[in-house]
């Protein structure tokens, strides 16, 4: 079953090193398609866009998501968790359409800014959930102990809560970056005509012809995603959570 899942990925990786242009048969190993890829100015611009959007969106989403996670933890309100978790369950297509309508209503020109705003919007919840999980694993008495030992409210946050939360913040940021760089549907709706990201670029290329260049860029994207996911997984259980 898993083999079936990974087989297409393996094929894409393998064919990105294939000499044959048509891709049906194996004619020999080459890095040619990677050279083509890096020489492709449009592709490079799309990659650059993806990177900028990913960085800006993940950093902003991390800031807001962390605050939301702290709020979730501190004020155990009935409605707030629902408000924050619901976006995770909303289909991308709904996000895409509604954000598009919203931006149009606001008279916002579609482009980098609208894509970034859209990505921040859907990434916040992921970060908030990661942060809350991290905080709920933390021993409450640590913060009280800090206050008790002379730290002000800010001091106990700065020296105890924040350092203990840090792995969660990093994991949340990486997750947001992964979500952003891989997103197609929401970007498709909110990017307008001028802005292209890597997934959008790949999609438009496929509509014309399948070239091994696509295999190459897909391979790179896949490797990046896997590295990020690995990093997130490593960050999560490793650090002492504060439970004695």
């Amino acid at each position, binding site marked *: 079953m898993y083999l079936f899942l990974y087989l297409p990925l393996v094929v894409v990786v393998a064919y990105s090193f294939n000499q044959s242009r048509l891709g049906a048969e194996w004619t020999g190993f080459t890095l040619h398609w990677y050279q083509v890829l890096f020489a492709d100015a449009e592709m490079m611009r799309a990659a650059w866009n993806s990177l900028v959007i990913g960085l800006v969106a993940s950093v902003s989403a991390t800031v807001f998501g962390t605050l939301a996670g702290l709020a979730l933890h501190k004020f155990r309100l009935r409605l707030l968790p629902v408000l924050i978790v619901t976006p995770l369950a909303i289909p991308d297509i709904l996000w895409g359409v509604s954000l598009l309508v919203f931006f149009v209503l606001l008279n916002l020109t579609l482009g980098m800014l609208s894509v970034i705003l859209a990505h921040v919007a859907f990434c916040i919840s992921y970060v908030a959930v990661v942060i809350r999980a991290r905080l709920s694993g933390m*021993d409450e*008495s*640590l913060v*009280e*102990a*800090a*206050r*008790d*030992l*002379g*730290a*002000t409210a800010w*001091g106990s946050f700065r*020296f*105890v809560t924040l*350092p*203990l939360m840090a792995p969660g913040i990093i994991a949340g940021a990486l997750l947001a970056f992964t979500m952003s760089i891989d997103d197609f549907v929401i970007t498709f709706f909110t990017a307008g005509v001028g802005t292209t990201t890597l997934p959008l670029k790949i999609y438009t290329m496929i509509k014309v012809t399948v070239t091994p260049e696509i295999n190459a860029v897909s391979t790179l994207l896949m490797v990046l995603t896997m590295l990020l996911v690995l990093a997130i997984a490593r960050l999560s259980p490793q*650090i*002492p*959570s*504060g439970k*004695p």
Partner: protein
Amino acid sequence: MALLEIRHVTKRFGGLAAVSDASLEIQPGEFFTLLGPSGCGKTTLLRMIAGFDVPDAGQILLDGVDLAATPPERRPFHTVFQSYALFPHMTVADNIAFPLRMAKVDERKLAARVAAALGEVRLQDMGTRYPNALSGGQKQRVALARALIDRPRLLLLDEPLAALDLKLREQMQSELISLQKDVGITFVYVTHDQGEALALSHRIAVMNEGRVSQIGTPDEVYEFPANRFVADFIGTCNLLDARVMALDGERVTLNVAGLGTVRAWSSRPCQQGDRGVLALRPEKIQLDRAPSSGGEASHFLGTIRGQMYLGDVTVYKVEIGNAVLVEALLPNSTARGARLFAPGDQIYLSWGYDAGRFIHDG
């Protein structure tokens, strides 16, 4: 003047009064214990002293000054939490240095003081370790060192030994006693373990359902329990329904259900006809094969109904008449001690007139 004074403090959670109308005074240098069963409000009272919880009514005063407006970080108290609450992302040395850093003590003077504090709790070589690499007893000592390093006026300890095994607990008990003597800091200690309270404390406040039931030295609360709850909670006690027939100062003559006339002491003034219980500690009862010849002693004939061997002592259940069952405790002073009596044996019980306590109802 008292170091800390608690005046009519009440704290409610929803409809439940976790602490109600508690008043007590703690003197400088004292080892003061809050003792009571689970849920009686000990932790809640301690948290109000520390400043984590705010009383709904009443006052907490330090040197006669109300602490209501003082946040926890500005109270000269530190707490040793039951979970130790060591910061997992800091080394042992950084944990211990935390209060000094918060007080902005010069970093250059810090190292020496941390080293001294580590020495005080015999953890010299552990400074660079992280808390998760320590045993329970070591964590305990780090928590103590951290709480004592800047010499607070008051150290609050919430069941600090509850998580340790018996041997280590006994060892830490004697360490706590000598530590408190050495540093001369006032301790407020919370426990539900009456043995621990008796062993450690200068004075004990026995709490029940949010109220302070009795305050006294260990021997006062053990020997002169103020009410049925204290008599029952501290140690074991035979409690027999009784009524005052005659009195002469503190000495009372009781009519005890199933026993008849018994003489006892009353620590509180009472009147003829008052109802209550006769409280009789098991170790104050003598068991003999022949009737003893004590002048004023009470003696009864009984039958052994059961025995429990506890190593150092043996507890006998003895039936008197056909109604009253009492526990008596005999030290196993010889190897044969445990087998002195067997179930079914007829024996004589006796106790001195000052062994029994009359405790008023209400």
